[in-house]
């Protein structure tokens, strides 16, 4: 579905990414792992249009594309869920859900009733969002897990095919992590692929179909979960 070839990026003297090939197929969960500084965040930022690579090409369904802005990325059906910057804490769930994609009537005025109804729909459809009473609730009052779930639910509602999740579980409790992981599995059934970026092997190993390991900007392993084990992966990561 999405294929990136030869992605290279330098920040001054630092080689963040070096000729990295990365593919995303439909209906799969990919674990993008590596220690801090491996280049995972940079790759994600390139795919979401926040940064532009120095070298390399990106193909979507076989056709060459350029991702120069978050809008381009959205148009391809990609959405990024950051660890702490996906939602605006001071606004309500409803306003956050439709941020940038507001339902408007005449001259850009908001169709609040419609937005409210759709927000309720979005909340009901997603798994693991318990304890949310109304879409008027301020996001800042939600727990970390709830926030993540709302961000993911939003992406799914807008029919994104590929979700890039940047450290989605790092700040969550055990229970909340499970809910987010279950949600990802549900999404795969519905045809959404997830790229799960983390340095927590134990979380990603539960749900990933395929694991891609980056180290110092290079891809050092791209393997199906069945062909490897937790021990082997830990060894590879510890070696660097």
């Amino acid at each position, binding site marked *: 579905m999405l294929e990136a070839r030869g992605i290279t990026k330098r920040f001054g003297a630092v080689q963040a990414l070096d000729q990295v090939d990365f593919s995303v197929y439909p209906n799969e969960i990919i674990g993008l792992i590596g220690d801090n500084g491996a280049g995972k965040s940079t790759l994600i930022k390139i795919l*979401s249009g*926040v940064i532009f690579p120095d070298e390399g090409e990106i193909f979507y369904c076989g056709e060459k594309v350029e991702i120069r*802005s*978050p*809008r381009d990325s*959205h148009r391809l059906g990609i959405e*990024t869920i*950051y660890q702490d*910057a*996906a*939602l*605006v*804490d*001071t*606004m309500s769930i409803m*306003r*956050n859900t*439709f*941020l*940038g*994609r*507001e339902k*408007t009537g005449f001259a*850009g*005025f*908001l169709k*609040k009733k419609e937005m409210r109804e759709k927000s309720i729909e979005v909340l009901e459809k997603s798994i693991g969002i318990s304890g949310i009473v109304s879409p008027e609730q301020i996001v800042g009052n939600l727990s970390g897990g709830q926030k993540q779930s709302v961000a993911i639910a939003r992406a799914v509602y807008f029919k994104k095919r590929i979700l890039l999740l940047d450290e989605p579980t790092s700040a969550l409790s055990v229970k909340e992590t499970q809910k987010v992981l279950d949600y990802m599995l549900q999404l795969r059934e519905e045809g959404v692929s997830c790229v799960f970026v983390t340095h927590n092997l134990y979380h990603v190993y539960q749900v990933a179909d395929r694991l891609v390991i980056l180290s110092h900007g290079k891809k050092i392993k791209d393997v199906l979960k069945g062909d490897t084990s937790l021990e082997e992966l830990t060894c590879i990561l510890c070696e660097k």
Partner: protein
Amino acid sequence: MFLAFFNKFRRTRVGNIVILFVAIQIGCITFSLLFPERFRYIDPTNIQVLLRAIPQIAIITMGVNMLMIAGEFDLSVGSNFTFSAFIMAILFNRGIPPSLSMLAALLVGCFIGFLNGLIVVKTKIPSFIATLGSMMFWRGMIYLVSGHKPASFKPGGLFQSLLTSSVGPLQAQFFWLLLVAVLCYLLLEHHRLGNHFFATGGNRQAALAVGVDVNKVKLIAFVIAGVTAALSGVVSTTRVSSVSPIQGEGLELQAIAACVIGGTSLLGGEGTVLGAFLGATLLYTIQDILLLLRAPGFYLNMFVGLVILAAVIFNQLIKRG
């Protein structure tokens, strides 16, 4: 049942300022009824003065409020106020019809705001600093165009009455204020752009990530602040028939104070039009009370300062509890 509603209302940020406002007004009115000679609050003259004077600070506050919600500050609104008014007066005194002169003033205000926005967005200097420089620059420009002398502005006719006439105790300036307030409210609460304002001020990263053009949003906010400053200058100058080069100093801080009293967050992303409106009104009401009580001048500053502190602490407590 009323108590339940009351408590829920109290929990919102704007709820507090409304309650404070109502309480103070009730206090004033009661006092005035009890001691009509010593405290002439309900006196028609006093009400007229209130309704005429509040718009000067309140109109600017509306614009500054929008900008603060979007996460930026504009310290040049005071200079903008006076400079735009001078442009209007000078053009009119050269023979340009008053409506065109007013339009020119508004365009100047728009331009100053746009320039501020451009500097902040392109150079990424904190807006506090950038507009500090802007404030001083335009203050200098005021002295340049005015030659250190006040300018008169007596347009008369329809223009004068549209801006400053009165029907009984109702004042035209106050209607202009209401118009601005209603427009700001519609934009902020019911328009897509308003949503972008809250997002840009609340979490710039998140807004960018979903494709909001944060730079464009900030530019628009700066322009709004500039235009309201100029409008206030136009209305105030028409009221007193002249504009003086030393006018307008301190308005920017008063506007920010009014917004903060009304619950607008200094960090951006939070605020209401009603809150800012009441904040400005409250600020002037306190001044009026002290005037009526014939308190010495320095009491004014002390009390205004205390009110600001109290309001901010109030809002903090609400947030935590």
